[in-house]
């Protein structure tokens, strides 16, 4: 055996362990789920029948699932870009801060490293109506009308969305900062000497060079918002995704179908619909951003 072959064998041997793990806990259940989505499997039934695509027809005809998909789209369409834009701004500003950079970075990362359930409950309390909620107390103190926030079918989704943007900000800012610091200083200096304005440096050098990082974050955040669950589960009353299903995400719908109604077949088909959507969106994002970068 040549040295190269030996090295490869060693690598494969080490990779085999996680591979087996992934096959057992990821791929096998996924294949099983795909099969189950074609059956009427329910924990409350003793028998199991092949029903073809009936589950898919049922979930796609369920107005609650369609609303959950629409809500999920809102989370992703407004949430992911908001996080990317805000965190990019924060990162660019942080890069310029001469002193206390570490402190600022810590402040922005804190929400991200706090358990999501804790964050959700604290915000849920802050969003409460008078006489309890802190935010409403401030609004009332300055003479503004109190807002219903999580109790309103129109404000609840934006409220949950805002909290999630705030949470994800820490992660994205950190990645962007790392990206900015990999940009060679001499390129920027050379541009400056050639008379480039700050805006030109940003638009022609920094942003283009951050494109790979932006692509990565867009994909990650897109997926993050498309499968939003914990925040909705904890911030809506009795974990129902209400009021009136206005905050219910596709993931919460799937959870309820599986573990409240015990309709595993329906839940499996709804999962695959969500999976297909995430797959398509991710591929589209990669196509859109993944152009050859050559400067």
């Amino acid at each position, binding site marked *: 055996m040549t040295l190269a072959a030996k090295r490869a064998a060693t690598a494969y041997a080490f990779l085999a362990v996680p591979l087996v793990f992934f096959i057992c806990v990821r791929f096998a259940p996924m294949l099983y789920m795909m099969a189950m989505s074609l059956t009427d499997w329910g924990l409350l039934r003793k028998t199991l029948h092949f029903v073809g695509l009936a589950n898919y027809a049922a979930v796609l005809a369920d107005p609650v699932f369609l609303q959950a998909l629409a809500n999920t789209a809102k989370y992703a369409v407004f949430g992911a870009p908001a996080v990317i834009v805000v965190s990019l701004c924060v990162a660019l500003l942080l890069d310029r801060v001469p002193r206390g950079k570490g402190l600022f970075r810590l402040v922005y990362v804190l929400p991200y490293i706090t358990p999501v359930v804790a964050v959700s409950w604290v915000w849920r309390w802050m969003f409460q*109506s008078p006489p309890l909620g802190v935010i409403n107390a401030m609004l009332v103190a300055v003479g503004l009308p109190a807002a219903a926030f999580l109790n309103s079918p129109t404000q609840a989704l934006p409220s949950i969305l805002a909290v999630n943007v705030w949470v994800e900000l820490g992660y994205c800012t950190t990645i962007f900062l790392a990206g900015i610091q990999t940009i060679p200083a001499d390129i920027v200096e050379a541009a400056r000497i050639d008379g480039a304005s700050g805006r030109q440096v940003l638009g022609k050098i920094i942003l283009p060079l951050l494109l790979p990082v932006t692509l990565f974050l867009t994909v990650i955040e897109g997926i993050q918002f498309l499968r939003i669950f914990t925040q909705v589960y904890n911030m809506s009353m009795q974990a129902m995704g209400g009021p009136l299903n206005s905050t219910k995400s596709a993931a919460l719908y799937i959870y309820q179908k599986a573990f409240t109604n*015990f309709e595993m077949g329906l839940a499996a088909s709804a999962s695959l619909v969500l999976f297909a959507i995430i797959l398509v969106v991710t591929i589209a994002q990669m196509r859109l951003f993944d152009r050859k970068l050559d400067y």
Partner: protein
Amino acid sequence: MKRTRIGILLFAALLLAGAVAIQAQDVTITYWQYFYESKVNLMNDLIQKFEAQNPGIKVEQVTFPYESYQQKVAAAIPAGEGPDVINLFYGWLPLWVKSGYIQPLPASDFSSDYFKKTYYPFVAESVNFGGKNYAAPTAVRALALFYNKKLFKDAGLDPNAPPKTLDELAAYAKKLSKYDSQGNLIQSGLLMQPDGQGHVWLREVLFRQFGAIPYSADGRTVSYNTPAGVQAFQWYTDRITKDKVGYPNFTTDDVTAFKAQKGAMNVDGSFRIATLNAVKDLDWGVAELPTYKGIKSNFASFWTNAIVQGVSGKKLEASVKFLKFLTSPEVQELWLQKVGELPATPSLSDKYKNDPVISVFLKGLAYAHATSYVDEAGQRTILVDAVNEVSLKNGDPAAVLAAAAAKEQKLISDFWKQ
């Protein structure tokens, strides 16, 4: 020659094994309930007592958090990993019976006649499916109007004269509500929590009082969508939208608000007695649910015990004995003392006729109805959403109630169709 010897040996071994089995006739049965501290502690004591009375039978108690209880059951019983005797909410019975989780109780010990003699009428009705009885409860619960005596005094109302009619209730609620300078509610006169007990108050009490029988006798037809039903529904939503004396999730929920003295009146169940007794400085009282046009109604519910499908032979015998024990007068009394739930046998309550709290619930039980649910959570959500459609989206009560009734009818029809 060799073969006979082996035969003899085998025969001897079988005899020996049989003898051992007869000698150690211990049979162990498993009992499942969800985790509620006072119930679990009492059950441990009861099991000791039962084992002392019935040598040879061992009972093992297993508990799960309430949130995951149904999931455990749904996963374990079809796989044959479930318990022998199980505690369940009566509203789950139709589904569990249909799914074949539980078996009919033997008629020799639990005849329909026995149920009629022993229990409240709503219990006998709720556990009977196709002429067979499937479960026997220890205790039952009913609703009442809980009110805060201190807030009554503060508002200049007599703390010993709670409202008796719905009109009085509405008037009292207005007097007991407080608002800040912007008109935000800061003290709720009447807590309105449809996903608490609000939906059952509406379902079995208000509908009936306004003249709409909510369901057909067999529970398979939704019949609250009548002009009278709409009136009842609107009476409920008017408290939120017109009088603004309360709204869903005010200070988190009704129980929190009542405990924090931010809510003056609430419709709640007897299971709350222990919770409220534990709150310091809370001076509360209970009254029968307010009447309307002289009509009284109440909603009763109960947790009950059943024997799981597939339990047979000695285990079945032991399970029946255990069930008999759990429903005995002695245990019912203990259950009231330690857990606070009311005896399922009416005659056992006689000595509490003058208890200021318990007597109120006992009176309610006498005219209570128990909804025959097919999907308790699903049916609850439909009425809760209907209230929200009106209170949050200004929906027209008549149209909203009609849509809710159609949705619930579909749920019930689908259940029985399958």
